């Protein structure tokens, strides 16, 4: 029997390719190795960064205290091959390991694809194909086209590709659902069922099985367990500073409001801006996509409980901001022309030098500056440009994208009913529509990129101060509009709020929405809040050091309002809208349409205020623009501290290029890399600030004594 199989396989392959093929073991016949087409130049750039991202991820997001879990994947398919065709797509595919009568014409393949019965194909020569490229054996390098047809299990509850995780509490294997990776209550397989599936060859085999006899059992780190290093670092820092300063974020709040209202503004103090202006400047760098997209991600991943942890992160982050901005102000350098160079680059080197830790301080300062420059190119410029470009494309194409999604549903229905004629006409329509969408996207994105890069260039290179000033001043207005829209939505659903509040408190410790566990929901909430308010990252200290004052503590007080406004006010608004509209748990939006981040926020608003998505798109672009301007300033200061003030034109040029590149590329790894740099800045920053914190504590005590004694002159 085995011999015949081998012979048949060899025969088929010989007839297929007209060459001798070394037949493999009879049982498995031939396994096709997937040979994806060579990467394009863009992908090569992306791949180069991918490695760096993996390294950074392994460090920054290394999860402490993770647990492992076992899982299986149901995956049974039949493969059909043909000799690789360049350009044409006419030859039929023959099934591997069976009689030559079993074949699929390209039309059959298309029908199967429409029914969602095919494993997705490769992009070959710039075109999305239904098939993939592969190689029959190591010895034979001839390329073949192949398709994998999914074979459904007789039990329709087990679709192709479904993953089952061993659940110790119930003893069975439970299916991982599309929504938040929750384990299904109804789709449970017993140990015996798994065994029979595995032995029947229905399960994907693991390359590194733990048990030789059960090669179909995979082991992975439980994605919801453990806490990423950087999140632990930021939260420990925030909690430490808050305890060490004796909850100054609470008892200093009142004074902070007084200061920001201008009560103590002495126009003769050294510095560039008033307390309020420094706060507005720092906020324009943090308020943006983090508040609109990031929070939505937290809510869809972590559910209502994550909201509680987000608030807590904002509350404790206030003290981190206080400490770092006090230091920024204290060790700032006032240049002869009255402008300021301050921030972590300064206090890490100068502050630690005073403590005889000069070498350590210089090291931290350089690491910080390098990360800050890269963060400004990436998270500050490219990422913002990319996301706002996406928002603009969506604004122009929204209706067509909806039509495309409707067409997909219609095609699937037609395929189910085997209505080939209808299906083909629909597919032509879809092809035309998607071609048109791609064409217009290829025009809109570069156009937007040029406009945005020019607007950035005239401000940062051309020195046109009006535009920068206007953009800066639009942010608070947009912010108020956004909050007002959120309050309107919350107001119309006010009856649901009490239930929601109780759900938030019930969920924050149980993590019910995430399938249980306190740590998972905590990490989700804290991570997104930290991304948004940047407390502990050190960036805001650069802006706050420009304030006119001779009391560093006073500017620190102002800075602590940053996380309050960013996280406790603005992020909360988004979070409540996402929770109240039920968008976080909406199957149609989250699972079927795959909406996430800003797109989901927009959908949630649309369901309440139909025209709001347009305002939201404009807000996103304006927020992105002001973030780019503010972050370019941070990057420039970091550059200046490394290379001197006369070399900043080079930095500015690079920053403008980054903006343009950000809009046209879709390089996931490049964007991830640069975005991660922002969080990476927290390592050198907090490490140094811990050493300098005792100074701040002493200064605070002295300041407060004088404040209580009424020694400060007031001006308002």
């Amino acid at each position: 029997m085995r011999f015949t199989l081998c012979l048949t396989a060899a025969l088929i392959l010989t007839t297929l390719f007209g060459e001798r093929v070394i037949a493999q073991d009879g049982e498995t016949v031939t396994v096709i190795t997937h040979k994806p087409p060579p990467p394009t130049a863009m992908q090569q750039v992306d791949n180069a960064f991918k490695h760096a991202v993996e390294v950074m991820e392994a460090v920054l997001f290394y999860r402490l205290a993770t647990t492992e879990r076992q899982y299986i994947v149901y995956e049974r398919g039949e493969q059909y091959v043909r000799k690789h065709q360049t350009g044409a797509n006419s030859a039929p595919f023959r099934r591997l390991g069976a009689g030559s009568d079993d074949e699929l014409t390209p039309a059959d393949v298309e029908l199967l694809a429409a029914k969602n019965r095919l494993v997705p194909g490769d992009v070959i020569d710039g075109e999305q194909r239904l098939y993939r490229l592969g190689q029959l054996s190591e010895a034979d390098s001839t390329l073949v086209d192949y398709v994998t047809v999914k074979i459904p299990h007789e039990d329709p509850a087990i679709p192709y590709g479904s993953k089952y995780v061993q659940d110790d509490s119930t003893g069975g294997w439970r299916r991982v659902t599309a929504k938040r990776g929750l384990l299904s209550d109804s789709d449970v397989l017993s140990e015996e069922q798994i065994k029979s599936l595995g032995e029947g060859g229905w399960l994907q085999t693991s390359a590194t099985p733990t048990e030789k006899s059960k090669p179909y059992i995979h082991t992975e780190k439980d994605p919801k367990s453990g806490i990423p290093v950087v999140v632990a670092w930021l939260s420990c820092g925030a909690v430490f500073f808050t305890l060490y300063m004796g909850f100054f974020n609470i008892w200093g709040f009142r004074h902070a409001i007084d200061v920001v209202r201008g009560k103590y503004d002495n126009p003769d103090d050294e510095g560039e801006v008033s307390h309020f202006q420094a706060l507005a400047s720092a906020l324009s760098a943090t308020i943006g996509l983090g508040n609109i997209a990031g929070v939505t991600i937290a809510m869809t991943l972590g559910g209502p409980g994550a909201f509680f942890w987000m608030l807590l992160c904002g509350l404790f982050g206030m003290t981190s901001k206080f400490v770092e901005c006090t230091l920024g102000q204290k060790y700032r350098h006032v240049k002869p022309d009255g402008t300021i160079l301050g921030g972590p680059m300064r206090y890490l080197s100068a502050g630690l030098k005073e403590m005889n830790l000069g070498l350590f301080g210089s090291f931290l300062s350089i690491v910080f500056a390098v990360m800050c420059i890269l963060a400004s190119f990436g998270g500050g410029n490219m990422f913002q440009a990319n996301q706002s470009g996406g928002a603009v494309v969506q604004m122009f194409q929204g209706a067509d994208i909806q039509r495309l999604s409707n067409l997909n549903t219609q095609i699937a229905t037609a395929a189910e009913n085997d209505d080939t004629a209808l299906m083909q006409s629909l597919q032509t329509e879809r092809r035309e529509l998607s071609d048109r969408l791609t064409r217009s996207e290829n025009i809109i994105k570069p156009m937007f990129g040029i406009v945005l890069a020019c607007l950035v260039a005239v401000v940062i290179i051309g020195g046109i101060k009006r535009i920068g000033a206007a953009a800066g001043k639009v942010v608070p207005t947009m912010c108020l509009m956004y909050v007002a829209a959120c309050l309107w939505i919350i107001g119309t659903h006010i009856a649901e709020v009490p239930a929601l509040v109780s759900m938030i408190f019930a969920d924050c410790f149980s993590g019910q929405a995430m399938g249980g566990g306190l740590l998972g929901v905590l990490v989700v909430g804290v991570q997104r809040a930290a991304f948004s308010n940047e407390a502990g990252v050190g960036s805001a200290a650069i802006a706050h050091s420009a304030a006119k004052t001779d009391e560093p503590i006073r500017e620190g007080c102002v800075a602590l309002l940053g996380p309050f406004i960013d996280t406790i006010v603005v992020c909360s608004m988004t979070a409540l809208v996402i929770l109240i509209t039920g968008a976080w748990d909406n199957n149609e939006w989250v699972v079927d349409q795959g909406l996430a981040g800003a797109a989901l926020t927009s959908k949630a608003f649309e369901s309440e205020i139909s025209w709001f998505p347009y305002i939201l798109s404009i807000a996103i672009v304006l927020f992105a623009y002001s973030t780019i301007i503010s972050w370019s300033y941070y990057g420039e200061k970091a550059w200046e501290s490394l290379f001197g003030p006369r070399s900043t034109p080079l930095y500015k040029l690079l920053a403008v290029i980054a903006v343009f590149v950000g809009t046209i590329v879709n390089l996931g790894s490049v964007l991830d890399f640069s975005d991660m740099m922002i969080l990476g800045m927290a390592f050198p920053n907090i490490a140094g600030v811990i050493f300098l914190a005792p100074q701040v504590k002493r200064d605070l005590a002295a300041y407060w004594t004088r404040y209580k004694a009424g020694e400060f002159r007031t001006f308002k």
Partner: protein
Amino acid sequence: MKRDNILVPVDFSEQSLNAIREANELSGDTGKVRLLHVLPPLESISPGVVWGDVSDSTREQHVRDYAKTFLAENKLVGVDFDVEIGPPGHVIADYAIKCDADLIVISSHGYHGVKRMLLGSVAETVIRHAHCAVLVLRRTDAE
């Protein structure tokens, strides 16, 4: 040869103080020495410009005030002080023509490596573009 009109570009560092002293010796009269500080162009994205009221004229005023204290502290009275904005090398050479200087005394920072590559040398540009003689003082503790 006595010089009557010496231009000394200053950045308020220890090196520029040396240059001023050298110029004083060469001319024998502080009245024949002119100091020039060149400011980099205004940073249009700094909080002070976007939100506050920092402008070229406020910066110039600050530098003049700063120079007054700096000169008084170093007991340099009677020297002329001026401020210009732009790329330092060219601005200094142009200013020398404008004020008809017969000598420029400039200190070199002696940068090496990346800083040298990015910053270039102001002294070098001045030598290349100046219409008059240039005396470059070497910095002894060069980086």
